[in-house]
């Protein structure tokens, strides 16, 4: 049971890292720095979360699994805003 939760969390975390990566590549130097750093942090933490059970022996819990699911759902819902590139409100030169 515990192994299944770990694997499920790893899959969710890798999906989350992939969504962050897809957004990071759409950014450039006109993006607000806070947005750049936030997505970079989320990408890194997601990768760490994916491998944490096997590398650090930090196992998944139902709460961590639920939290990862919620963030992944939020990423999926907001994906439409990123379809045409970086959202306008995230540009530092929006004027």
């Amino acid at each position: 049971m515990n192994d299944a939760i770990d694997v499920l969390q790893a899959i969710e975390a890798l999906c989350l890292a992939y969504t962050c990566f897809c957004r990071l590549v759409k950014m450039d130097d006109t993006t607000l720095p806070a947005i750049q750093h936030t997505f970079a942090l989320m990408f890194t933490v997601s990768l760490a979360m994916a491998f944490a059970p096997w590398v650090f022996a930090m196992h998944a819990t139902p709460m961590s699994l639920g939290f990862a699911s919620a963030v992944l759902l939020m990423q999926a819902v907001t994906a439409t805003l990123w379809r045409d590139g970086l959202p306008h409100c995230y540009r530092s030169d929006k004027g």
Partner: protein
Amino acid sequence: MAEPSSSSSGLLYLFVVLLGPVVGPHAFVLFGATLGGATALAKTRPTGRFGDILFLARVIGIALLFTMPAAHFLSGTFIGLPIDFAMPCVAYTIGWKWDQLTEKAWPWILERLGFRKPGQKPEEVTRDGGHE
């Protein structure tokens, strides 16, 4: 024949035993390098997906390569920071700023070696090495 115990039969246990001691001490360095590389990735212009993955891998690799000497220099001779604290910070800084540093350093080196005239502007190069 000894009966296999429940802990030794799990693949998960095997991974933790094998990867833990190897990756564990350097996990924060890898974390810092990845964070720096991802931040650098956000600052550069978009290219193909494969080029972006290569960019990230290159920056993380370079950060991992240069972290140890730079951290030893900082902790041993220059500032006197504890090495455990210096290494992740150095990895993050190298990952974040490596491209900007090389952007400034390479023209200077090429000028000194005589491959480029002084003051000549370098061609703009994208993440995957292609020219704009």
